[in-house]
């Protein structure tokens, strides 16, 4: 929770604990409020659904958010050091193939390691091109996105085709790493969920999804979040790395080895993308299939942007998409209930705008709330295409509404040449 602090040099001394405590309480309040909103929507929804707050939806959302979050964190590492990494998708593709290869020749954990190395290799390519040869970041990223699917297809044909069940476009099935439930707690939460009490059962349902049948790999993936927060915001190395993204020329004058920090950042970025790819293969699918990343690298970049280049914001964005994905897969009618949720949320935003005397915004919010409410009232279901595009629409909406509050690293995408000063 430390990353919710305003961005500043780490505060030292006794005050830190107080701020932490405060921030933790605030987040708990936000979470409770979100659950309450979901509960109310679920109570009101017709046709009725119990999937908005079920443990099944929660555990699915948690898992499906992982690839997007890891890609987002990957983007965060690179861009905080001033390198735009649009090649995340390609690095994820390398991660999927390498992850499957490791899992096929060894065990799933070897697959995870191979996936990370495969992604890191993609990161290395990007680092060599952008940091050493000063190629335009977008050009190099696009080249990696083109290269990766071709390379993996070639590799799959030359290696996986030789295995039973493998082919030019897929690997043999691979095992997952195993899962665990927290004993007692998960049973207790399940008991509460089955009672169908308003709010209580909803909250315990969502919590239950977090502690039952959790894969070890999911735990590893979520550990990347606090690790990123710690390394980038609580260490000297992280401060120097971020200074390279804000002003590499100033960093250079105080003796920071800019090239080194950018290089490491981009490789870590690739490694995270590779882990994301390996997660898709080993945890979500159980098999390598061509094209299975399905644009999640780009969605990860989008979550990073609307998370305002911060780890917690990125992770929350990823969870939002994971939740939309999960609902769509588990229950299409629940997606219809989201229209009501949107109407209620917009109504609340309108109230807040009224209180702050922002008349134009409040009228806009009321208008959109009415639009969603009408849509909800006159239909029983949403078109089958809508759930598929929901994440993309949400990205657009959030970017449109939040764009004025976003602040990217000042020297993001800048071409830096050692010792040559500003261009």
């Amino acid at each position, binding site marked *: 929770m430390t990353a919710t602090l305003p961005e500043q040099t780490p505060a030292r001394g006794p005050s830190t604990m107080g701020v932490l405590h405060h921030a933790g309480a605030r987040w708990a309040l936000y979470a409770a409020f979100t659950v309450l909103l979901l509960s109310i929507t679920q109570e009101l929804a017709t046709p009725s659904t119990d999937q908005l707050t079920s443990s099944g939806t929660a555990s699915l959302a948690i898992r499906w958010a992982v690839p997007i979050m890891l890609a987002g964190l990957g983007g965060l590492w690179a861009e905080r050091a001033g390198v735009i990494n649009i090649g995340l998708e390609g690095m994820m593709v390398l991660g999927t193939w390498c992850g499957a290869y490791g899992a096929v020749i060894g065990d799933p954990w070897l697959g995870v390691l191979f996936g990370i190395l495969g992604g890191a290799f993609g990161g290395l390519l990007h680092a060599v091109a952008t940091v050493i040869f*000063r190629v335009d970041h977008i050009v190099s990223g696009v080249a990696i996105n083109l290269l990766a699917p071709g390379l993996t297809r070639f590799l799959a044909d030359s290696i996986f085709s030789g295995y039973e*069940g493998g082919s030019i476009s897929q690997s043999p099935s691979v095992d997952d790493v195993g899962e665990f439930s927290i004993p007692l707690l998960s049973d207790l939460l399940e008991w509460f969920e089955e009672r169908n009490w308003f709010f209580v059962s909803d909250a315990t349902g969502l919590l239950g999804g977090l502690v039952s049948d959790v894969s070890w790999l999911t735990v590893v993936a979520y550990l990347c979040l606090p690790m990123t927060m710690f390394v980038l915001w609580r260490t000297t190395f992280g401060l120097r790395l971020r200074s390279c993204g804000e002003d590499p020329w100033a960093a250079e004058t105080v003796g920071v080895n800019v090239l080194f920090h950018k290089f490491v950042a981009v490789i870590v970025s690739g490694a995270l993308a590779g882990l994301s790819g390996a997660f898709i293969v080993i945890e979500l699918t159980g*098999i390598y299939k061509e094209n299975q990343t399905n644009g999640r690298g780009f969605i990860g970049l989008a979550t990073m942007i609307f998370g305002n280049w911060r780890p917690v914001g990125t992770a929350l964005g990823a969870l939002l998409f994971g939740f939309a994905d999960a609902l769509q897969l588990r229950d299409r009618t629940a997606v219809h209930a989201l229209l009501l949720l949107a109407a209620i949320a917009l109504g609340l935003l309108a109230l807040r705008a009224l209180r702050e005397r922002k008349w134009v915004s409040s009228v806009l919010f009321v208008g959109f709330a009415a639009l969603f409410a009408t849509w909800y009232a006159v239909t029983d279901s949403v078109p089958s295409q809508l759930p598929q595009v929901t994440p993309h629409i949400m990205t657009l909406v959030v970017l449109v509404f939040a764009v004025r509050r976003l602040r990217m690293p000042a020297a993001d995408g800048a071409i830096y040449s050692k010792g040559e000063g500003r261009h």
Partner: protein
Amino acid sequence: MRKRLLVLLAILISFSFVAASCGDDDDDASDTTTTAGGDMPETDVSVGLVFDTTGRGDQSFNDSAAAGVDRAVAELGVEFTEATPNADGSNRAELLQLAAEQHDIVLAVGFAFGDTLGPAATDNPDTHFVGVDTFVPDFENVLNLAFAEEQGSFLMGVVAALKSETNHVGFIGGVDMELIQKFEAGYVAGARAVSEDITIDIEYIAPEGDFTGFNAPDRAKEIAASMYDGGADVVYHAAGGSGLGMFQAAQDAGAWGIGVDSDQWALLPDLQDVILTSMLKPVDSGIFDAIATEVDGSFEGGFRTLDLTNGGIGYSTSGGHIDDIVDQIEEYAAQIAAGDIVVPTTPS
């Protein structure tokens, strides 16, 4: 500086194209071309096989097509090469043209070739084409192989309803389009024929036009898990390569799954405990017969529908999970073949 940048970019991009094209052509010369040998009959017919996306190894539709050609290679001694389109299928047309220029008979596997077969047939009037699941009328050199999937799916509906203990079954379609709706219509009719008040969950992985639905085991797994959570205990898929995910979910839930196109029990040894049966769409024998007509010179264009009357559709009994109800299934099959039951081809 700029020059070095351009050189690097050129290298990267050209490498990616080289890698991509290596994959597309599938090393055809080296490991898949097989020639006649031993006591096989002499023939110089060469066969080009263009798969649907995913290609050989999908443990379903494409593998069935591959089996037909492999049999033709072994029994008729034809030569063949194969090619697999890229993941989004955007290079189908090019692969088909390439195959048409090099071979006597070209097999296009999958409905998606419907758009590209016509132009290829016009450009190569001396080449014969066989489209599986395609609808390309008015060409003398194009044979369209169609299958009465609704009839096979009806029998799967019968199996599901008979085997369900909760009177609740499910259906997962890969893509929400006419061809797959045929499966749904037949399955629902079959289940209702056995039990009128049965609950049937129906979900499609992807909307029309988004063919990733045939290649998304992760999504199929979660959709199936949701159905099993909701009380369904038998789920049937018509989703090609995505079906694997449904079987994984069945295994987690301790419930049944029904396979499609090929005998998936034999193809997925790890999941044999949960694969009740599979609807067999014998693409292999359809393709083998077509190649045989090419070899003996009797190839004819037009349409050929394989259904229960001519043995063109069926089900597998591997694993013995449905041995106890085979008589009842056969009864329904006989009624369909006799025309007493007319199976709908569109969902009601």
